[in-house]
């Protein structure tokens, strides 16, 4: 197998225990109405025996009601469908202790958000913003969230579906994974920077270059996966790690803020920590004026 691009359903099958995937079902109940959010896949799976909620993209279909939503794009329906799966999981697990909150697995292969007129008229930004808030809430409430990039993780769609996870994993570049805001050719066009220069710079500079390796250096990815058959065991390992890291209710030990720190440790984000410290010190000096 060369890659899993566009094959979110296949990837879900690969990471879940045999015949364990129940599409559109959480706790035995169908949670999705018919003909809604076709490019998103939600449901329940087992990973190494651990019951988990899975949310993925389907790159092999299109949404017949929204012409700009196809090939794994997250449209308004898709984002709300994904968000509802998260909220239902939070609700159903509300009375469980933190150690039993179900994991949520994000199988990421999305090239973007719906870029259309209907989307702007009715507010695509709310749909994706709402999904991100749902994931952040689930993470803060103790659900381990693991994202695994199996194909495309592009810009705002990756923000929406992936970057709110506790831990982010990615198949490495040998599997054709693409992680970027824009390909270098588009960055060159928009910034009017020389494409040869950009390409040469990208080899050493993780801050704008495209590819999982650079996101890793910036702290944007916890682990790169080189063996496709090990996906489920690596996900299970991270679920376990996340549970331990969050066991005392710590919300900064995982997720976006922890990845910010990781970016400093990996020397990819070089001034972030300094700015945070400077601002904290400056505020401390004037705080009494504002109490």
């Amino acid at each position, binding site marked *: 197998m060369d890659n899993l691009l566009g094959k979110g359903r296949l990837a879900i099958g690969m990471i879940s225990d045999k015949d364990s995937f129940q599409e559109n079902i959480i706790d035995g109940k169908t949670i999705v109405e018919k003909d809604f959010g076709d490019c998103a896949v939600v449901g329940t799976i087992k990973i190494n025996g651990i019951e988990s909620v899975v949310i993925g993209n389907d790159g092999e279909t299109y949404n017949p009601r929204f012409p700009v939503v196809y090939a794994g794009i997250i449209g308004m329906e898709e984002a709300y469908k994904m968000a509802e799966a998260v909220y239902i999981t939070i609700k159903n697990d509300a009375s469980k202790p933190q150690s039993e909150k179900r994991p949520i697995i994000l199988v990421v292969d999305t090239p973007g958000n719906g870029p259309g007129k209907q989307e702007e008229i009715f507010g695509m930004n*709310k749909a994706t913003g709402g999904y991100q808030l749902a994931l952040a809430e689930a993470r803060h409430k103790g659900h381990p969230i693991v994202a695994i990039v199996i194909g495309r993780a592009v810009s705002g769609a990756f923000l929406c579906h992936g970057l709110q996870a506790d831990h982010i994993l990615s198949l490495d570049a040998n599997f054709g994974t693409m992680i970027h805001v824009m390909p270098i050719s588009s960055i060159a066009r928009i910034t009017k920077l020389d494409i040869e220069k950009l390409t040469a710079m990208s080899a050493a500079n993780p801050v704008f270059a495209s590819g999982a390796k650079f996101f890793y250096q910036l702290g944007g990815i916890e682990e790169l996966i080189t063996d496709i058959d090990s996906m489920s065991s690596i996900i299970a390992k991270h679920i376990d790690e996340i549970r331990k890291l969050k066991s005392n209710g710590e919300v900064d030990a995982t997720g976006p803020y922890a990845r910010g720190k990781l970016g400093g440790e990996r020397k990819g984000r*070089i001034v972030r920590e300094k700015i945070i410290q*400077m601002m904290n010190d400056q505020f401390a000096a004037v705080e009494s004026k504002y109490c």
Partner: protein
Amino acid sequence: MSKELRTIEFEFKSADFKEFPKTSFHYGVVGSGDMELIYQHKDLGGAAKMTVCTPVTGFDHVWKMVFEKFITTAKIGNVLIEINDNNATPAVVFLRLNQALKEALAGTELINSNIVNASFLELSARERAIGLVDENTFTELVSSYDKMSSPHLPLMGESIEFDDGIITGVGKIGEKTVFVISQEGKYIGGSLGEVSGAKFVNVLRLARNFYESMLAKNPSLPESKRPAILISFETGGVRLHEANAGLLAHAEIMNELQLNRGKVPVISIIGSKVGCFGGMGFIAAATDVIIMSEYGRLGLTGPEVIEQEMGKDEFDSSDRALVYRTTGGKHKYIVGDSNFLVENTAMSFREALKKVFSLDINEISKLRRVGSVEMIEKQKKLVKLSVDLQPKDSVDVWRYAGNENPEKLIDLNVKTFLETAKQLNLK
């Protein structure tokens, strides 16, 4: 063309110089064809020194000429002038040096009373930050004088700005402490990079930590004294030159917004030229309250990209009226994406803020668009309306909302619009 950012230096002594006062003074924005500068007293044996960080090559002699002419006429000494340039012409450079000097010597400060009634659309990020809070209460945190500019842009030959295009600080509105984030659209479109991202994220954390320490000291602290956060958006989202760092910062911001819920209300102020798009459109949507002027625009995808995706017949990005009808303040108010529509002044935004601050945190939470399963159920009705109605234009939605002559709403002033327009109310 290959670009390079470099620093050039000049020193010149006027025969009969006046000592520059013992202060620092910042002026300007690094817009296209423009520059910022900081005047600072420095003992240079009477000389004036200028350092220019510029992407322009081959015009060093012109810089020297302009500088010497300026010092000869201004007759100042013991001063360091630091400039960040983005292709300013000699005439602009000369003008900015003089304007800034005049204000520096007069001790002119940006003050609220000069800003609050000016056109909000035209205000710089710093003016907006100052204009939104009470007079003489704003403290800028990590300001231009700290010179925390992007470490990445010089490698790409791109101009830097001492504040990286974002103003962060704290002020007061009445007895309430208000943390402020304000984005500068003239500097690389108000985009978010590593530095501006870290500043943005940390204000959200600082506000929450402040709230928690205040509540720890006084658990019955009245709502009126609990802090709030204002974000004056002017941005297209991620800065492409530092795209990965910008994207990761967006994720951090969303995480902080969720952590601030029920504690520190976050209020979006949208009324600046660039609008609020890209990843920042998500951020605004996820805040508690949105206040827009009719010139504010809010969305995800910019008009050019929609045209590229759907064709010019479906969406003509050069049709400014269409662009405003689709993402502008009036439309966003009718569909409920904006809680308030206000006049184009900081004063009007402040009046809406007063209304928000008269509510308790639970009531403020009810103004949200997203953030719970119930809110998502409500939003899904809008998506269904999109499918059923298939509007060609926002005006079709206005008509559906019960506005009989929706086209007439377009040209109404804000006051009459608010008296006339019916908001969409889906059962």
